[in-house]
Protein backbone atom coordinates (compact mmCIF):
# COMPACT_ATOMS: atom_id res chain seq x y z
CA UNK A 1 0.00 0.00 0.00
CA UNK A 2 1.54 3.35 -1.03
CA UNK A 3 1.40 6.16 1.47
CA UNK A 4 -1.54 8.55 1.02
CA UNK A 5 -1.15 12.32 0.69
CA UNK A 6 -3.85 15.00 0.39
CA UNK A 7 -2.94 18.33 -1.23
CA UNK A 8 -5.15 21.38 -0.62
CA UNK A 9 -4.60 24.68 -2.40
CA UNK A 10 -7.06 26.98 -4.14
CA UNK A 11 -4.61 27.37 -7.00
CA UNK A 12 -5.36 24.49 -9.38
CA UNK A 13 -1.84 24.50 -10.82
CA UNK A 14 -0.23 24.04 -7.40
CA UNK A 15 -2.42 20.99 -6.86
CA UNK A 16 -1.70 19.59 -10.29
CA UNK A 17 2.08 20.06 -10.13
CA UNK A 18 2.39 18.71 -6.58
CA UNK A 19 0.33 15.69 -7.56
CA UNK A 20 2.53 15.10 -10.61
CA UNK A 21 5.77 15.29 -8.65
CA UNK A 22 4.61 13.10 -5.76
CA UNK A 23 2.81 10.54 -7.95
CA UNK A 24 6.00 10.10 -9.93
CA UNK A 25 7.74 9.43 -6.59
CA UNK A 26 5.21 6.64 -5.97
CA UNK A 27 2.82 8.21 -3.46
CA UNK A 28 -0.95 8.07 -3.76
CA UNK A 29 -2.12 11.71 -4.04
CA UNK A 30 -5.54 13.37 -3.83
CA UNK A 31 -5.93 17.10 -4.52
CA UNK A 32 -8.58 19.66 -3.56
CA UNK A 33 -8.95 23.28 -4.61
CA UNK A 34 -12.00 23.53 -2.36
CA UNK A 35 -10.88 23.52 1.26
CA UNK A 36 -14.26 22.67 2.79
CA UNK A 37 -14.55 19.59 0.58
CA UNK A 38 -11.01 18.68 1.54
CA UNK A 39 -11.83 18.92 5.20
CA UNK A 40 -14.78 16.61 4.63
CA UNK A 41 -12.49 14.16 2.90
CA UNK A 42 -10.00 14.26 5.78
CA UNK A 43 -12.78 13.44 8.23
CA UNK A 44 -13.76 10.37 6.16
CA UNK A 45 -10.31 9.12 5.36
CA UNK A 46 -6.98 8.86 7.10
CA UNK A 47 -4.03 10.32 5.21
CA UNK A 48 -0.35 9.96 6.05
CA UNK A 49 0.43 13.53 5.04
CA UNK A 50 -1.58 16.74 4.57
CA UNK A 51 -0.08 19.46 2.39
CA UNK A 52 -2.16 22.58 2.63
CA UNK A 53 -2.05 26.23 1.67
CA UNK A 54 -2.31 28.57 4.64
CA UNK A 55 -4.42 31.32 3.18
CA UNK A 56 -7.64 30.12 1.62
CA UNK A 57 -11.23 31.21 1.31
CA UNK A 58 -13.78 29.62 3.61
CA UNK A 59 -11.81 27.03 5.62
CA UNK A 60 -8.16 28.09 5.89
CA UNK A 61 -4.91 26.19 6.50
CA UNK A 62 -5.03 26.64 10.26
CA UNK A 63 -8.50 25.05 10.38
CA UNK A 64 -7.21 22.04 8.40
CA UNK A 65 -4.23 21.79 10.74
CA UNK A 66 -6.37 21.86 13.89
CA UNK A 67 -8.81 19.30 12.55
CA UNK A 68 -6.06 16.95 11.40
CA UNK A 69 -4.23 17.17 14.73
CA UNK A 70 -7.48 16.39 16.51
CA UNK A 71 -8.50 13.41 14.37
CA UNK A 72 -5.14 11.87 13.52
CA UNK A 73 -2.32 12.81 15.89
CA UNK A 74 0.15 10.84 13.78
CA UNK A 75 -0.63 12.48 10.48
CA UNK A 76 2.01 14.99 9.45
CA UNK A 77 1.13 18.45 8.04
CA UNK A 78 3.15 20.55 5.64
CA UNK A 79 2.05 24.17 5.30
CA UNK A 80 2.44 26.18 2.12
CA UNK A 81 2.28 29.91 2.30
CA UNK A 82 3.14 32.92 0.19
CA UNK A 83 4.04 34.90 3.23
CA UNK A 84 3.59 34.00 6.87
CA UNK A 85 3.29 36.41 9.70
CA UNK A 86 5.17 35.59 12.88
CA UNK A 87 1.92 34.82 14.67
CA UNK A 88 0.73 32.24 12.15
CA UNK A 89 4.17 30.68 12.08
CA UNK A 90 4.25 30.28 15.86
CA UNK A 91 0.75 28.86 15.96
CA UNK A 92 1.47 26.50 13.09
CA UNK A 93 4.65 25.19 14.76
CA UNK A 94 2.78 24.62 18.03
CA UNK A 95 0.28 22.58 16.04
CA UNK A 96 3.03 20.17 15.04
CA UNK A 97 3.48 21.39 11.53
CA UNK A 98 6.20 19.27 10.08
CA UNK A 99 7.45 21.83 7.62
CA UNK A 100 6.82 25.33 6.35
CA UNK A 101 6.99 25.90 2.65
CA UNK A 102 7.31 29.40 1.35
CA UNK A 103 6.16 30.02 -2.20
CA UNK A 104 7.52 29.52 -4.79
CA UNK A 105 7.65 25.78 -4.10
CA UNK A 106 10.78 24.06 -5.36
CA UNK A 107 10.30 20.50 -6.60
CA UNK A 108 13.46 19.09 -5.03
CA UNK A 109 12.71 20.63 -1.66
CA UNK A 110 9.17 19.31 -1.82
CA UNK A 111 10.36 15.77 -2.53
CA UNK A 112 12.94 15.98 0.27
CA UNK A 113 10.51 17.34 2.82
CA UNK A 114 7.88 14.70 2.03
CA UNK A 115 10.47 11.92 2.29
CA UNK A 116 11.67 13.30 5.64
CA UNK A 117 8.15 13.44 7.03
CA UNK A 118 6.68 10.10 6.00
CA UNK A 119 9.56 8.25 4.40
CA UNK A 120 9.55 6.55 1.04
CA UNK A 121 6.20 5.47 -0.41
Amino acid at each position, binding site marked *: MPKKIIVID*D*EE*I*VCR*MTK*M*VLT*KEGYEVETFTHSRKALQRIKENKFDLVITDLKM*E*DVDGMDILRETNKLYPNTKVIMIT*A*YATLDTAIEALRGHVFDFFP*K*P*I*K*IEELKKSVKESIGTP
Partner: protein
Amino acid sequence: MMNHLKRWKKNLSLRKKINIAIHIEGILITVISIFMFFSSRAILSKLNFIEDFDNINFSFLEMRKSEKNYFLYHDVNALKEVLKIGEKEYNLLINSKEEFMSKLGKKDYIMLLAILDKYLNTAKKIVNISSNADSNYLELTKNLREFGHHLTQFSIFLRNIQHKKVNKLVHQNAITLFIGLGIILVSQLLLWQYFFISLSKRLLKIESLTKEVANGNFHKVVTNVERIDEDEIGLLMKGIIHMANELEKREEQLIQAKKLASLGVLVSGVAHEIGNPLNNIFMLTEGYLSYYDSLEDEQKKIFMRDVREQAKRIKKIVRKLLNFSRQKKFEFNLVSPIEVVEKSIALVNNQIKVSNIKVHRLIDSNLPFIKVDVDQIQQVIVNLFINAIHAMPKGGDIFVEIRVSEDRTKVIIKVRDTGVGIKPEILPHIFDPFFTTKGTKGTGLGLSVSYGIIKQHNGKISVKTEVNKGTTFIIELPAHLENNLEEEKHA
Protein backbone atom coordinates in the same frame (compact mmCIF):
# COMPACT_ATOMS: atom_id res chain seq x y z
CA MET B 1 -6.01 112.67 3.23
CA MET B 2 -8.97 110.54 2.07
CA ASN B 3 -6.95 107.41 2.57
CA HIS B 4 -6.02 108.54 5.99
CA LEU B 5 -9.66 109.06 6.84
CA LYS B 6 -10.60 105.66 5.45
CA ARG B 7 -7.96 103.88 7.46
CA TRP B 8 -9.03 105.78 10.51
CA LYS B 9 -12.62 104.71 9.89
CA LYS B 10 -11.57 101.13 9.33
CA ASN B 11 -9.56 101.00 12.50
CA LEU B 12 -12.45 102.14 14.65
CA SER B 13 -13.83 99.49 16.86
CA LEU B 14 -17.49 98.69 16.73
CA ARG B 15 -18.01 100.18 20.18
CA LYS B 16 -16.45 103.47 19.10
CA LYS B 17 -18.55 103.55 15.98
CA ILE B 18 -21.75 103.13 17.94
CA ASN B 19 -20.60 105.87 20.35
CA ILE B 20 -19.89 108.31 17.56
CA ALA B 21 -23.15 107.56 15.84
CA ILE B 22 -25.13 108.22 19.00
CA HIS B 23 -23.26 111.53 19.55
CA ILE B 24 -23.87 112.72 16.01
CA GLU B 25 -27.54 111.94 16.42
CA GLY B 26 -27.64 113.88 19.70
CA ILE B 27 -25.93 116.94 18.22
CA LEU B 28 -28.34 116.92 15.31
CA ILE B 29 -31.37 116.88 17.58
CA THR B 30 -29.92 119.66 19.76
CA VAL B 31 -29.19 121.94 16.78
CA ILE B 32 -32.70 121.49 15.44
CA SER B 33 -34.21 122.17 18.88
CA ILE B 34 -32.18 125.38 19.36
CA PHE B 35 -33.16 126.60 15.93
CA MET B 36 -36.83 125.93 16.69
CA PHE B 37 -36.52 127.76 19.99
CA PHE B 38 -35.10 130.94 18.46
CA SER B 39 -37.41 130.99 15.51
CA SER B 40 -40.42 130.55 17.82
CA ARG B 41 -39.22 133.51 19.85
CA ALA B 42 -38.88 135.59 16.72
CA ILE B 43 -42.43 134.73 15.73
CA LEU B 44 -43.68 135.63 19.17
CA SER B 45 -42.04 139.04 19.15
CA LYS B 46 -43.39 139.73 15.65
CA LEU B 47 -46.87 138.82 16.84
CA ASN B 48 -46.46 141.22 19.82
CA PHE B 49 -45.42 143.96 17.48
CA ILE B 50 -48.41 143.33 15.23
CA GLU B 51 -50.63 143.68 18.29
CA ASP B 52 -49.00 147.05 19.14
CA PHE B 53 -49.29 148.19 15.59
CA ASP B 54 -52.93 147.14 15.53
CA ASN B 55 -53.51 149.51 18.49
CA ILE B 56 -51.99 152.32 16.48
CA ASN B 57 -54.18 151.45 13.54
CA PHE B 58 -57.18 151.39 15.80
CA SER B 59 -56.28 154.88 17.05
CA PHE B 60 -55.95 156.09 13.46
CA LEU B 61 -59.46 154.82 12.78
CA GLU B 62 -60.75 156.64 15.90
CA MET B 63 -59.01 159.71 14.61
CA ARG B 64 -60.76 159.48 11.29
CA LYS B 65 -64.10 158.94 13.02
CA SER B 66 -63.62 162.24 14.81
CA GLU B 67 -62.57 163.78 11.54
CA LYS B 68 -65.85 162.65 9.98
CA ASN B 69 -67.76 164.04 12.95
CA TYR B 70 -66.09 167.38 12.38
CA PHE B 71 -67.19 167.43 8.80
CA LEU B 72 -70.73 166.47 9.78
CA TYR B 73 -71.21 168.88 12.65
CA HIS B 74 -68.36 171.37 12.09
CA ASP B 75 -67.56 171.08 15.75
CA VAL B 76 -63.97 172.28 16.41
CA ASN B 77 -63.82 170.00 19.43
CA ALA B 78 -63.99 167.00 17.19
CA LEU B 79 -60.95 168.26 15.30
CA LYS B 80 -59.18 168.88 18.61
CA GLU B 81 -59.94 165.26 19.51
CA VAL B 82 -58.27 164.28 16.22
CA LEU B 83 -55.17 166.24 17.19
CA LYS B 84 -55.12 164.77 20.68
CA ILE B 85 -55.21 161.17 19.50
CA GLY B 86 -52.86 161.85 16.59
CA GLU B 87 -50.22 163.58 18.71
CA LYS B 88 -50.33 160.76 21.24
CA GLU B 89 -49.64 158.21 18.53
CA TYR B 90 -47.03 160.50 16.93
CA ASN B 91 -45.18 160.70 20.22
CA LEU B 92 -45.44 156.95 20.60
CA LEU B 93 -43.92 156.46 17.15
CA ILE B 94 -41.12 158.89 17.94
CA ASN B 95 -40.40 157.49 21.38
CA SER B 96 -40.16 153.90 20.22
CA LYS B 97 -38.30 155.00 17.15
CA GLU B 98 -35.76 152.16 17.29
CA GLU B 99 -38.30 149.38 17.53
CA PHE B 100 -40.56 150.70 14.78
CA MET B 101 -37.70 151.45 12.53
CA SER B 102 -36.28 147.99 12.85
CA LYS B 103 -39.63 146.28 12.42
CA LEU B 104 -41.15 148.42 9.67
CA GLY B 105 -37.98 149.38 7.91
CA LYS B 106 -36.54 152.90 7.94
CA LYS B 107 -38.18 154.08 4.75
CA ASP B 108 -41.69 152.95 5.64
CA TYR B 109 -41.31 154.27 9.17
CA ILE B 110 -40.34 157.75 7.96
CA MET B 111 -43.07 157.70 5.35
CA LEU B 112 -45.69 156.81 7.97
CA LEU B 113 -44.39 159.54 10.24
CA ALA B 114 -44.39 162.05 7.40
CA ILE B 115 -47.97 161.30 6.39
CA LEU B 116 -49.12 161.53 10.03
CA ASP B 117 -47.22 164.80 10.39
CA LYS B 118 -48.83 166.31 7.32
CA TYR B 119 -52.25 165.14 8.45
CA LEU B 120 -51.84 166.64 11.89
CA ASN B 121 -50.40 169.88 10.53
CA THR B 122 -53.35 170.25 8.21
CA ALA B 123 -55.72 169.57 11.11
CA LYS B 124 -53.91 172.25 13.19
CA LYS B 125 -54.20 174.78 10.42
CA ILE B 126 -57.93 174.15 10.14
CA VAL B 127 -58.30 174.64 13.92
CA ASN B 128 -56.41 177.93 13.69
CA ILE B 129 -58.48 179.26 10.82
CA SER B 130 -61.70 178.06 12.43
CA SER B 131 -63.80 179.97 9.96
CA ASN B 132 -65.45 178.44 6.95
CA ALA B 133 -65.17 181.66 5.16
CA ASP B 134 -61.44 181.54 4.79
CA SER B 135 -60.35 181.08 1.24
CA ASN B 136 -57.89 178.30 2.24
CA TYR B 137 -60.51 176.41 4.16
CA LEU B 138 -61.81 174.34 1.31
CA GLU B 139 -58.31 173.48 0.15
CA LEU B 140 -57.27 172.44 3.67
CA THR B 141 -60.28 170.23 4.31
CA LYS B 142 -59.70 168.51 1.03
CA ASN B 143 -56.06 167.90 2.02
CA LEU B 144 -57.07 166.66 5.42
CA ARG B 145 -59.36 164.08 3.93
CA GLU B 146 -56.71 162.99 1.47
CA PHE B 147 -53.94 162.69 4.05
CA GLY B 148 -56.30 160.84 6.42
CA HIS B 149 -57.15 158.43 3.70
CA HIS B 150 -53.47 157.96 2.89
CA LEU B 151 -52.57 157.44 6.50
CA THR B 152 -55.06 154.67 7.15
CA GLN B 153 -54.34 152.99 3.82
CA PHE B 154 -50.61 153.05 4.40
CA SER B 155 -50.75 151.85 7.99
CA ILE B 156 -53.03 148.99 7.03
CA PHE B 157 -50.62 148.20 4.22
CA LEU B 158 -47.75 148.14 6.72
CA ARG B 159 -49.71 145.94 9.07
CA ASN B 160 -50.40 143.49 6.26
CA ILE B 161 -46.73 143.35 5.43
CA GLN B 162 -45.98 142.43 9.04
CA HIS B 163 -48.67 139.83 8.93
CA LYS B 164 -47.22 138.31 5.81
CA LYS B 165 -43.79 138.26 7.42
CA VAL B 166 -45.11 136.28 10.36
CA ASN B 167 -46.87 133.89 8.03
CA LYS B 168 -43.64 133.37 6.18
CA LEU B 169 -41.73 132.73 9.38
CA VAL B 170 -44.26 130.17 10.58
CA HIS B 171 -44.13 128.51 7.23
CA GLN B 172 -40.33 128.48 7.30
CA ASN B 173 -40.42 127.04 10.75
CA ALA B 174 -42.67 124.23 9.65
CA ILE B 175 -40.39 123.45 6.72
CA THR B 176 -37.27 123.48 8.89
CA LEU B 177 -38.93 121.21 11.37
CA PHE B 178 -39.98 118.91 8.61
CA ILE B 179 -36.49 118.80 7.06
CA GLY B 180 -34.87 118.36 10.47
CA LEU B 181 -37.11 115.45 11.32
CA GLY B 182 -36.41 114.05 7.87
CA ILE B 183 -32.67 114.24 8.43
CA ILE B 184 -33.02 112.53 11.79
CA LEU B 185 -35.19 109.83 10.29
CA VAL B 186 -32.80 109.22 7.38
CA SER B 187 -29.77 109.13 9.66
CA GLN B 188 -31.65 106.72 11.89
CA LEU B 189 -32.32 104.54 8.87
CA LEU B 190 -28.68 104.73 7.79
CA LEU B 191 -27.54 103.80 11.27
CA TRP B 192 -30.03 100.94 11.29
CA GLN B 193 -28.75 99.83 7.93
CA TYR B 194 -25.15 100.05 9.05
CA PHE B 195 -25.40 98.51 12.46
CA PHE B 196 -28.10 96.00 11.98
CA ILE B 197 -28.35 95.06 8.36
CA SER B 198 -24.62 95.15 7.60
CA LEU B 199 -23.84 93.84 11.05
CA SER B 200 -26.30 91.00 10.79
CA LYS B 201 -25.09 90.34 7.25
CA ARG B 202 -21.57 89.91 8.56
CA LEU B 203 -22.80 87.79 11.43
CA LEU B 204 -24.69 85.61 8.96
CA LYS B 205 -21.50 85.39 6.93
CA ILE B 206 -19.69 84.20 10.04
CA GLU B 207 -22.43 81.67 10.60
CA SER B 208 -22.06 80.35 7.07
CA LEU B 209 -18.27 80.27 7.48
CA THR B 210 -18.53 78.20 10.63
CA LYS B 211 -20.93 75.88 8.81
CA GLU B 212 -18.38 75.42 6.05
CA VAL B 213 -15.74 74.65 8.66
CA ALA B 214 -18.08 72.11 10.23
CA ASN B 215 -18.60 70.52 6.83
CA GLY B 216 -14.88 70.37 6.26
CA ASN B 217 -14.85 72.82 3.35
CA PHE B 218 -11.88 74.67 4.78
CA HIS B 219 -10.71 75.97 1.49
CA LYS B 220 -14.00 77.74 0.86
CA VAL B 221 -13.58 79.61 4.12
CA VAL B 222 -10.05 80.68 3.29
CA THR B 223 -10.92 81.93 -0.19
CA ASN B 224 -14.46 83.14 0.33
CA VAL B 225 -13.85 86.26 2.37
CA GLU B 226 -13.24 89.32 0.28
CA ARG B 227 -13.28 92.09 2.91
CA ILE B 228 -12.28 92.16 6.54
CA ASP B 229 -12.84 95.18 8.77
CA GLU B 230 -10.64 95.86 11.75
CA ASP B 231 -13.43 95.84 14.28
CA GLU B 232 -14.52 93.12 16.69
CA ILE B 233 -16.39 91.17 14.02
CA GLY B 234 -13.44 91.48 11.69
CA LEU B 235 -11.25 89.98 14.40
CA LEU B 236 -13.71 87.13 14.85
CA MET B 237 -13.68 86.51 11.10
CA LYS B 238 -9.89 86.56 11.07
CA GLY B 239 -9.90 84.01 13.86
CA ILE B 240 -12.18 81.69 11.93
CA ILE B 241 -10.10 82.00 8.78
CA HIS B 242 -6.96 81.28 10.72
CA MET B 243 -8.61 78.22 12.21
CA ALA B 244 -9.79 77.03 8.78
CA ASN B 245 -6.27 77.54 7.43
CA GLU B 246 -4.80 75.41 10.17
CA LEU B 247 -7.47 72.75 9.74
CA GLU B 248 -6.84 72.70 6.01
CA LYS B 249 -3.13 72.16 6.57
CA ARG B 250 -3.83 69.37 9.04
CA GLU B 251 -6.25 67.76 6.63
CA GLU B 252 -3.70 67.86 3.85
CA GLN B 253 -1.23 66.15 6.13
CA LEU B 254 -3.86 63.60 7.02
CA ILE B 255 -4.66 62.90 3.37
CA GLN B 256 -0.96 62.51 2.69
CA ALA B 257 -0.70 60.04 5.56
CA LYS B 258 -3.74 58.18 4.28
CA LYS B 259 -2.21 57.99 0.82
CA LEU B 260 0.95 56.53 2.28
CA ALA B 261 -1.11 54.05 4.26
CA SER B 262 -3.05 52.99 1.21
CA LEU B 263 0.23 52.66 -0.65
CA GLY B 264 1.28 50.17 2.01
CA VAL B 265 -1.98 48.30 1.57
CA LEU B 266 -1.40 48.43 -2.16
CA VAL B 267 2.11 47.01 -1.99
CA SER B 268 1.17 44.09 0.23
CA GLY B 269 -1.89 43.52 -1.91
CA VAL B 270 0.22 43.44 -5.06
CA ALA B 271 2.66 41.03 -3.49
CA HIS B 272 -0.17 38.73 -2.60
CA GLU B 273 -2.01 39.04 -5.90
CA ILE B 274 1.03 38.53 -8.05
CA GLY B 275 2.52 35.91 -5.71
CA ASN B 276 0.09 33.18 -6.75
CA PRO B 277 0.51 33.33 -10.54
CA LEU B 278 4.25 33.76 -10.07
CA ASN B 279 4.42 30.64 -7.95
CA ASN B 280 2.37 28.82 -10.57
CA ILE B 281 4.75 29.84 -13.34
CA PHE B 282 7.67 28.83 -11.19
CA MET B 283 6.25 25.38 -10.52
CA LEU B 284 5.16 24.86 -14.12
CA THR B 285 8.53 25.76 -15.58
CA GLU B 286 10.43 23.78 -12.97
CA GLY B 287 8.24 20.74 -13.60
CA TYR B 288 8.62 21.21 -17.34
CA LEU B 289 12.41 21.25 -17.05
CA SER B 290 12.63 18.43 -14.52
CA TYR B 291 10.38 16.04 -16.40
CA TYR B 292 11.13 17.24 -19.91
CA ASP B 293 12.30 13.87 -21.17
CA SER B 294 9.30 11.96 -19.89
CA LEU B 295 6.72 14.49 -21.07
CA GLU B 296 4.70 13.92 -24.19
CA ASP B 297 4.34 16.73 -26.73
CA GLU B 298 0.69 17.29 -25.82
CA GLN B 299 1.64 17.62 -22.12
CA LYS B 300 4.40 20.06 -22.96
CA LYS B 301 1.86 22.15 -24.85
CA ILE B 302 -0.46 22.16 -21.84
CA PHE B 303 2.42 23.31 -19.61
CA MET B 304 3.23 26.21 -21.89
CA ARG B 305 -0.42 27.17 -22.28
CA ASP B 306 -0.76 27.25 -18.49
CA VAL B 307 2.34 29.40 -18.17
CA ARG B 308 0.81 31.81 -20.66
CA GLU B 309 -2.46 31.88 -18.70
CA GLN B 310 -0.60 32.76 -15.52
CA ALA B 311 1.38 35.47 -17.29
CA LYS B 312 -1.92 36.88 -18.52
CA ARG B 313 -3.17 36.92 -14.95
CA ILE B 314 -0.21 39.03 -13.94
CA LYS B 315 -0.69 41.32 -16.90
CA LYS B 316 -4.29 41.90 -15.91
CA ILE B 317 -3.29 42.85 -12.37
CA VAL B 318 -0.58 45.16 -13.65
CA ARG B 319 -3.02 46.85 -15.99
CA LYS B 320 -5.46 47.45 -13.17
CA LEU B 321 -2.60 48.79 -11.08
CA LEU B 322 -1.63 51.18 -13.79
CA ASN B 323 -5.19 52.37 -13.94
CA PHE B 324 -5.10 52.80 -10.22
CA SER B 325 -1.93 54.81 -10.25
CA ARG B 326 -3.45 56.85 -13.09
CA GLN B 327 -0.59 56.42 -15.49
CA LYS B 328 -3.00 56.72 -18.34
CA LYS B 329 -3.56 60.20 -19.73
CA PHE B 330 -7.12 61.36 -19.33
CA GLU B 331 -9.03 62.69 -22.28
CA PHE B 332 -11.66 65.20 -21.22
CA ASN B 333 -14.73 65.79 -23.31
CA LEU B 334 -17.94 67.73 -22.87
CA VAL B 335 -20.80 65.28 -22.58
CA SER B 336 -24.28 64.98 -21.21
CA PRO B 337 -24.29 63.01 -17.94
CA ILE B 338 -27.34 61.10 -19.23
CA GLU B 339 -25.36 59.87 -22.22
CA VAL B 340 -22.53 58.59 -20.03
CA VAL B 341 -24.92 56.80 -17.69
CA GLU B 342 -26.94 55.25 -20.53
CA LYS B 343 -23.79 53.99 -22.25
CA SER B 344 -22.65 52.43 -18.99
CA ILE B 345 -26.01 50.74 -18.48
CA ALA B 346 -25.83 49.37 -22.02
CA LEU B 347 -22.53 47.70 -21.15
CA VAL B 348 -24.02 45.74 -18.25
CA ASN B 349 -27.47 45.30 -19.71
CA ASN B 350 -27.13 41.55 -20.28
CA GLN B 351 -25.94 40.86 -16.77
CA ILE B 352 -28.79 42.95 -15.40
CA LYS B 353 -31.35 40.95 -17.39
CA VAL B 354 -30.10 37.52 -16.39
CA SER B 355 -29.83 38.60 -12.74
CA ASN B 356 -33.52 39.44 -12.54
CA ILE B 357 -32.85 43.10 -11.81
CA LYS B 358 -34.88 46.13 -12.86
CA VAL B 359 -33.23 49.51 -13.50
CA HIS B 360 -35.21 52.65 -12.62
CA ARG B 361 -34.12 56.08 -13.82
CA LEU B 362 -34.75 59.34 -11.93
CA ILE B 363 -33.37 62.18 -14.01
CA ASP B 364 -33.56 65.96 -13.53
CA SER B 365 -34.56 67.97 -16.55
CA ASN B 366 -32.22 70.66 -17.83
CA LEU B 367 -29.00 69.00 -16.65
CA PRO B 368 -25.73 70.82 -17.27
CA PHE B 369 -22.94 69.11 -19.21
CA ILE B 370 -19.88 67.59 -17.58
CA LYS B 371 -16.30 67.66 -18.80
CA VAL B 372 -14.99 64.14 -18.21
CA ASP B 373 -13.02 61.24 -19.60
CA VAL B 374 -16.05 59.29 -20.79
CA ASP B 375 -14.34 55.86 -20.72
CA GLN B 376 -13.15 56.41 -17.17
CA ILE B 377 -16.47 57.63 -15.82
CA GLN B 378 -18.17 54.77 -17.64
CA GLN B 379 -15.80 52.39 -15.90
CA VAL B 380 -16.79 53.87 -12.55
CA ILE B 381 -20.51 53.50 -13.21
CA VAL B 382 -20.06 49.98 -14.57
CA ASN B 383 -18.11 49.09 -11.40
CA LEU B 384 -20.96 50.38 -9.26
CA PHE B 385 -23.49 48.44 -11.32
CA ILE B 386 -21.51 45.21 -11.11
CA ASN B 387 -21.13 45.62 -7.37
CA ALA B 388 -24.88 46.24 -7.12
CA ILE B 389 -25.58 43.11 -9.18
CA HIS B 390 -23.28 41.09 -6.91
CA ALA B 391 -25.08 42.50 -3.89
CA MET B 392 -28.43 41.20 -5.17
CA PRO B 393 -27.94 37.51 -6.00
CA LYS B 394 -31.71 36.95 -5.91
CA GLY B 395 -32.49 39.99 -8.04
CA GLY B 396 -33.89 43.37 -7.06
CA ASP B 397 -33.92 46.99 -8.16
CA ILE B 398 -31.27 49.49 -9.14
CA PHE B 399 -32.23 53.15 -8.98
CA VAL B 400 -30.08 55.52 -11.02
CA GLU B 401 -30.51 59.19 -10.19
CA ILE B 402 -28.96 62.02 -12.15
CA ARG B 403 -29.39 65.36 -10.45
CA VAL B 404 -28.04 68.87 -10.58
CA SER B 405 -27.18 70.65 -7.34
CA GLU B 406 -29.27 73.67 -6.40
CA ASP B 407 -26.54 76.13 -7.34
CA ARG B 408 -26.02 74.20 -10.59
CA THR B 409 -22.30 73.71 -9.91
CA LYS B 410 -22.45 69.95 -9.46
CA VAL B 411 -23.92 66.96 -11.23
CA ILE B 412 -24.83 64.18 -8.83
CA ILE B 413 -25.13 60.58 -9.98
CA LYS B 414 -26.54 58.08 -7.50
CA VAL B 415 -26.61 54.30 -7.91
CA ARG B 416 -28.83 52.64 -5.32
CA ASP B 417 -29.42 48.91 -4.94
CA THR B 418 -31.76 46.88 -2.76
CA GLY B 419 -29.03 44.39 -1.92
CA VAL B 420 -27.30 42.99 1.15
CA GLY B 421 -25.73 46.28 2.25
CA ILE B 422 -22.27 46.71 3.76
CA LYS B 423 -21.45 45.77 7.35
CA PRO B 424 -20.23 48.73 9.40
CA GLU B 425 -16.97 46.96 10.28
CA ILE B 426 -15.93 46.58 6.63
CA LEU B 427 -17.28 49.93 5.44
CA PRO B 428 -14.02 51.81 6.14
CA HIS B 429 -12.10 49.40 3.89
CA ILE B 430 -14.22 49.16 0.74
CA PHE B 431 -12.21 51.83 -1.09
CA ASP B 432 -8.89 50.15 -0.21
CA PRO B 433 -7.10 48.51 -3.12
CA PHE B 434 -7.49 44.71 -3.12
CA PHE B 435 -10.10 44.77 -0.40
CA THR B 436 -12.80 42.32 -1.36
CA THR B 437 -15.33 40.08 0.34
CA LYS B 438 -15.78 38.04 -2.82
CA GLY B 439 -12.75 35.75 -2.52
CA THR B 440 -11.03 34.88 -5.78
CA LYS B 441 -14.04 36.16 -7.74
CA GLY B 442 -13.35 39.74 -6.70
CA THR B 443 -10.27 41.82 -7.34
CA GLY B 444 -10.99 44.43 -4.70
CA LEU B 445 -9.89 47.05 -7.19
CA GLY B 446 -13.29 48.25 -8.48
CA LEU B 447 -13.96 50.86 -5.84
CA SER B 448 -10.38 51.96 -5.30
CA VAL B 449 -9.95 52.54 -9.03
CA SER B 450 -13.30 54.34 -9.13
CA TYR B 451 -12.22 56.51 -6.24
CA GLY B 452 -9.03 57.45 -8.08
CA ILE B 453 -10.92 58.32 -11.26
CA ILE B 454 -13.47 60.50 -9.50
CA LYS B 455 -10.73 62.27 -7.54
CA GLN B 456 -8.96 62.96 -10.79
CA HIS B 457 -12.13 64.67 -12.03
CA ASN B 458 -12.22 66.90 -8.93
CA GLY B 459 -15.30 65.02 -7.83
CA LYS B 460 -16.39 63.09 -4.80
CA ILE B 461 -17.60 59.55 -4.27
CA SER B 462 -19.38 58.53 -1.11
CA VAL B 463 -21.55 55.72 0.14
CA LYS B 464 -24.65 55.23 2.26
CA THR B 465 -25.64 51.76 3.26
CA GLU B 466 -27.86 49.73 5.54
CA VAL B 467 -27.39 46.01 6.04
CA ASN B 468 -30.12 44.00 4.27
CA LYS B 469 -31.73 47.19 2.96
CA GLY B 470 -29.31 48.30 0.29
CA THR B 471 -26.48 50.56 -0.68
CA THR B 472 -26.25 53.91 -2.44
CA PHE B 473 -23.09 55.16 -4.08
CA ILE B 474 -23.08 58.90 -4.71
CA ILE B 475 -20.83 60.51 -7.30
CA GLU B 476 -20.48 64.28 -7.43
CA LEU B 477 -18.87 65.81 -10.50
CA PRO B 478 -18.28 69.50 -11.21
CA ALA B 479 -20.81 70.78 -13.73
CA HIS B 480 -19.51 72.57 -16.75
CA LEU B 481 -20.42 76.28 -16.47
CA GLU B 482 -23.31 76.93 -18.80
CA ASN B 483 -22.28 80.25 -20.34
CA ASN B 484 -18.92 78.76 -21.23
CA LEU B 485 -20.72 76.03 -23.08
CA GLU B 486 -22.24 78.53 -25.49
CA GLU B 487 -18.87 80.10 -26.16
CA GLU B 488 -17.26 76.78 -26.84
CA LYS B 489 -20.04 75.82 -29.20
CA HIS B 490 -19.41 78.96 -31.19
CA ALA B 491 -15.67 78.52 -31.19
